Each structure stands twice: as C-alpha cells, then as structure tokens.
C-alpha cells in the first residue's frame, strides 16, 4: 500500500509536466515566424515506482505520476539533407544566371549601337571609300569608324576582364566566410556534444548549426552527416571541411586577372593539402565562371578580333594607298610583341593616304598616261568581307548565338530548380514549422491538464482534511 501522501506527489509531477509543456508551446508560438526555428514537442512518460521489489519496499503496481522524458526537435534529417542539396543547386544556377545576364549586358546585342552595328558601319564606310577612293574625307571617316570597332572589341574584353576580377574578389571574400562559418560549426559541435553528454537539450543550438550548414551548402554545395554523439561533420566535394571539432580552410590561388588565367589558372583549393576543391553552390558557380565561361567567351572574342585583323590585313597589305604605300597592316596589336587579340587590337594606320584602296600603285605613271591609276578594287573587296561566310561578322554572330543558348539553358534550369527548391522548402517547413492551430490546441490540452492536476491535488487535500480534521470526533 502506498503512502497517504503519494497522490500529492503524483499531482505535483503532473503540474510540473503540464507547465513544462505549456512553456514549450509558448516557445513554439513565440518563434512561429522565426527563420530556421524547429518546432519542439514535449515527450511525457508515465512514471512507475520501483519495479525490483525488496522486503520492505514494494510497489502496489500503481504509477507515480508523469515526467517529461525529452523535448524533441521535430526535424527530418533526410528532408534537411535534400534541402541542402537543392539549395546548393539553386545557388549554383542563380549565380550562373546572374553571370550570363551580366555578360549579355556587356555585349548588349541585338541593338543598333553594339559591336555588330559598329562592324556594319565599318564595312559601309569601306564601301563609301570604294565609291570615292580619291576623297580624303571618306578615308578619314573609315579610320575613325575602324577605331570604333577596335575600341568596341577592347571594351568588351575589358568588361570581361573586370567581371573576372570582381568575381575573384568576391570568391576570396566567400572563402573567408566559409572558413568562419566552418569554425562556428565546429564550436557549436563542441557545445552540443558536451550538453548532450550531460543530458541537457540544446535544440536552439542545433537550429543555429543547421542554419550555418545551410549557408555553407548554398556557398559551397556542402553536405553534412550527424555523428552519434550529436556532432555534425560537413563535407565539401567529398573532402571534410568540419570533422567534429576541427576544421580545414579554403583558399583562392592563381590568376587574379583574366590575362593571367591561361598561364596560371585560378583554383579554389584546400589551404592544407593545396588540392583543388570540388565545390558546388555559389562558389562552384564562380569558379566555373572564372575557369570556363569568361575564358571561353574571351577566347571566342579574341578569335573574332584575329579573324577581323587577318581578313582585313591580307587584302589591305596587297593594296596601295593614295600615296603609293603598300604592304601595311590595317589592324595591329596595341602592345608590341603580343598577338592581336580583342584586348590589343587597334588601327595601325594613322594617315588616311595610307589606307590601301587600289590594286595598282597610283604613283607609277605608265606613258602615255600623265597620271597614275587609282582603282577601288581593294576597298571594294574589303567591303565584301562583311558578307563573307567565314568573316568576323559571322563568327561574332555565332558567338552571340552560343552565348544566348547557354544563357537561356541556365536560366531555364534555374527556373525549374527554383521551383524544386521551393517545394522542398515548403515540405521542410511543413515538417519543422510551427502550426498555430496545433499550438492553440496543445495550449488548451495542457491548460486543461494543469487544471485537472490541480483538482486532483484539491481532492486529495480535502480527503486528507476529512481524515485528519474530521475523523475520530465521535461524541465531541
């Protein structure tokens, strides 16, 4: 038979448990709109007395109340892992879409003023020169128009180069951010492992850690796995970034400028082993931008510039200028000793009289003629380059077409990925988010529980009152 006062204790455990549950519900409601907050639930367990009977201490089989065995964090680790992967993909594609949009803005095609229009104007001016090879004015115009084309190529190259440098600066800053976040996670691991070992619930710390890991996933495509002791390991491209309480660092090495990329490629690597990091997410996209997209476009642009210079120079060098000069290159490299690229191309002719227009030398006089012959065949042939199937115009158009296709593909994939990510987020939110209706219901339940436990206490109290104060008063 249990103690007379056992029931009071039972009611008391219930009061404690219901209050704890009300507190947790209050915490859930308070954080209904907190980003990354995971709803918590109180796990109650009925208590039993000693189940190993001894001579003077044996149980009557009745329970001795209730205890809060755990405050559970209702988060699905699989959904979280899926979320990390999708967020990493989404971050990668978003960054690529932005990169392509910036590159498209650089070229600003199709328009009446961009490089293609400048090329058209230049071929038109060659035609004007062919119409009136003797006029200095049209030849001067031609030199200006051709300089505009060269400047257009230079500035397109410069913008690609500056995009490269900007990306580099940003990537280096992100590498620092990753290192800091990794250190934070290691620190949180330490706190969580210690707290878990001593039986304290650290749900809020775990929320913080999940947020930090999600941030890392978006930046680097990181994945994570939980250890039994509560620590979380973080991996980037199959290598460990955070292992329990220790971290490794990322660093950016190699080319800072686009022009150095070919000789000393930019790499995102581990600071300790100097091996490259197979990153995804925003940083993976940036690394791809710097190693593939920008160099690829820059090479294509260089090829257009070289095609322009080669096709014009071949015809130009064979012709004669008004002053009889011949063998001159029309386009040259602005940097002596370097090949002609989009960055270096410039007009090599400064004197309009040296512009080769004629197939015959106008300074050579063949009697009986009293003056030389100046035809327009060279200028005419040069004007025709604009329509050539292998000319720079076609090559440039193909390049812009490819840029458009690549940009469109990435942008479509990004649209799809955004949808997937949002679906996964909604699913995660459904799992771990706070539902106010549910919390209100819990509030009611626990309140009623608390009231009922109080009533039990009152009942026992009045029962004891009956026993102590009103029993054995016969004949008084």
């Amino acid at each position, binding site marked *: 038979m249990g103690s007379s006062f056992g029931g009071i204790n039972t009611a008391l455990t219930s009061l404690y448990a219901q209050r704890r549950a009300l507190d947790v519900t209050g915490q859930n409601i308070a954080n209904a*709109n907190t980003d990354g907050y995971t709803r918590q639930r109180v796990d109650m367990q009925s208590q039993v007395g000693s189940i190993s009977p001894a001579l003077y201490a044996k149980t009557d089989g009745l329970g001795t109340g209730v205890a809060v065995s755990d405050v559970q964090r209702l988060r699905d680790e699989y959904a979280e892992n899926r979320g990390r992967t999708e967020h990493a993909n989404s971050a990668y594609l978003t960054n690529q879409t932005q990169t392509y949009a910036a590159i498209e803005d650089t070229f600003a095609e199709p328009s009446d003023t961009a490089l293609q229009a400048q090329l058209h104007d230049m071929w038109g001016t060659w*035609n004007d020169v062919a119409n009136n090879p003797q006029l200095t004015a049209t030849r001067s115009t031609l030199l200006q128009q051709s300089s505009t084309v060269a400047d257009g190529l230079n500035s397109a190259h410069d913008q690609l180069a500056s995009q490269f440098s900007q990306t580099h600066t940003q990537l280096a800053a992100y590498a620092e951010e990753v290192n800091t976040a990794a250190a934070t996670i290691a620190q949180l691991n330490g706190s969580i492992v210690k707290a878990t070992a001593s039986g304290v619930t650290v749900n809020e710390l775990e929320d913080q850690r999940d947020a930090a890991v999600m941030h890392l996933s978006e930046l680097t495509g990181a994945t994570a796995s939980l250890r039994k002791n509560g620590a979380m390991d973080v991996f980037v491209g199959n290598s460990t970034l955070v292992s329990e309480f220790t971290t490794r660092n990322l660093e950016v090495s190699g080319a800072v400028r686009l022009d150095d990329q070919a000789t000393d490629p930019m790499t995102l690597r581990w600071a300790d082993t100097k091996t490259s990091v197979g990153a995804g997410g925003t940083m993976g996209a940036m690394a791809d931008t710097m190693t593939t997209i920008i160099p690829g476009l820059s090479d294509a642009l260089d090829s257009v510039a070289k095609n322009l210079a080669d096709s014009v120079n071949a015809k130009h060098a064979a012709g004669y200028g008004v002053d009889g000069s011949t063998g001159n290159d029309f386009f040259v490299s602005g940097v002596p000793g370097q090949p002609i690229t989009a960055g270096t191309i410039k007009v090599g002719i400064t004197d309009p009289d040296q512009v080769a227009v004629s197939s015959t030398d106008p300074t050579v006089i063949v009697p009986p003629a009293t003056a030389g012959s100046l035809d327009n065949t060279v200028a005419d042939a040069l004007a025709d380059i*604009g329509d050539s199937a292998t000319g720079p115009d076609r090559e440039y158009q193909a390049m812009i077409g490819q840029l458009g296709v690549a940009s469109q593909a990435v942008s479509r994939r990004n649209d799809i990925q955004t949808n997937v990510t949002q679906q996964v*987020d909604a*699913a995660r939110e459904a799992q771990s988010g706070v539902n106010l209706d549910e919390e*209100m219901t819990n509030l009611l339940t626990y309140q009623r529980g608390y009231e009922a436990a109080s009533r039990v206490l009152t009942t026992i109290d009045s029962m004891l009152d009956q026993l102590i104060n009103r029993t054995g008063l016969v004949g008084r």
Partner: protein
Amino acid sequence: MAVIGRVTESSIHTRVLQNLQRNIAKGEKIQEQLSSGKMINRPSDSPTGTVTSMQLRGETRAAQQYSRNADDGLGWLNTAQDTLSSASTLVNRARDLTVQGLSSGTNDAQSNEALASELDQIKSSLIGYANTKYLDRPVFGGTTTGDLAYDATGTFVGNAGQTTRTVGAGAKIRVDANGPEAFGSGSTQLFTVLQNISDNIRSGDTDALADNLNKLDAASNQMKTTLSNVGARYNRIEGMKQSAQDRLLSVTSQLSDVEDVDLPKTIMDMQLQQTSYQAALAASAKVIQPSLIDFLR
C-alpha cells in the same frame, strides 16, 4: 513523428509567396517587352531570334549601302550619258560642216578657214566634254589620278582601268565609260579625225576629206554605241536600286516580325497577368487570415 500532409502557416506563406513571385516575375517580363517595344532584349530571350536579328540588320545595312552605291553609280552614268549625248550633237554639227566643206570644193580660202576654225572650236569643245568630271574624277579617264582624260591636243592620258559599283550581292556594275570606247582610238579617234578634217579643209584636199568623213561617221557610231551601252547600264543600276529598296522594306518588316512585340497580344497577356495577380492576392489574403485563435474565446 511524421504527420502526412501537415500544413503550417509558414509553409502556406512560402507557397503563396512563391506563386505571387512567379506571377509578378511574368508581369515584369511583359512590362519590359511593352516598355521597350522589343521581344528580344538580350540574346537569351531568343538565341536564334538574336542571330536572325543581327543578320537582318546586316542585310538592312547592305540594302541601304547598295542603294547608296547605286545612287553614286547613277551619278557617274548620268554624267557620261549627258556628256555623250551633247557630244553627239556636236559631232553631228561637225559632220554637217565637213559635208559642207566637201560639197563646196570651190569655196574661197576665207570661207574654208571659217569652216575649219569652227571645226577647231568643236574639237576643243569635245575635248572639254571628254574631260567631264564627276566628284573630281574624269569620267572618261579610267582610274587615273590626274585631272584630265585627254590633253589639249586630244591625246588620251587616262588609263584603261574600270570603275565598278556594287549594287547587289555579288553584282558589280561598271559605271564609267572609257575614253577610247567613247571617242575611238587609232585612226578613227574623234579628235584626230576632226583635226585631220580641219587640216583637209584648210588645204582643200577633198579626197582625204571624203575619207575622213567616213572615219568621222565611224567615230560617231562608236560614240552612239557607247551611249546606248551607258544607257543600258543606267537602266540596270536603276533596276538594282529599286530591288535594293524593295529588299530594304521587306527586311525591315522581317526584322520587326522577329524583334518587335505583338502589341495586342502582349497587352492581352498583361491584362491576364494582372487579373490573375489580383485574384491571387485576394485569395491569399483570405487564406492566411483565419486561425483557431479567432474562435477560442
């Protein structure tokens, strides 16, 4: 633990926001198209459309250039044509004078001298015609860099170079008439013949004069042949110019088809988008509002 189909306020919030975002992003694209008037604002809007648009712009430029080249060519040919028809009139007058010198063999020296000096005048006028310039270049001088096609004595000082204009894709048409083609060469060269006739009249050599009259006819025929040749080329260039202008019109409308927005369709799209956006807003305002709190008193 897993509650299937659990819905929370923030998952509704996320979904509603996502749908509204998608809706408004569509609106933004339509607004961009409407305000710029272009379907294609960047290559990724339509890669093939972009390349087509760039090529059509090239064709527009080419058609404009062909038309401009044709104008220039017409200027050359017009000059040559006018000059040759005026010259032809003068050559007819010279023939009249020659016949006059031939038929009145008994003319006195004074009237012969008058005939001869008029012929000399005609000759120098014709040399003046032969040196006609278009935009500072002698039309009959080939590709000479000099000012003259013929010197004062009527000797050709130009060259046989030809001037062409590109008036269509691969269509290069000659726009000059070379001196020897228009005014003859060798013994039937117009100026030599005229000089000989004038000399014959002064010396009264009627046999040589009759011979030279034939040569004058030959030179005159040569000039007329060239004149009709020039006229034919003039027509050809005019035809090409017309086709370049027609091409310009059709290319411009093709470019507009590729690039420009279909206004009625886009405005309809915008209306639809606005309606669905407003409906979505109204619906989400209703969905989120009520909660259990409203009913617990």
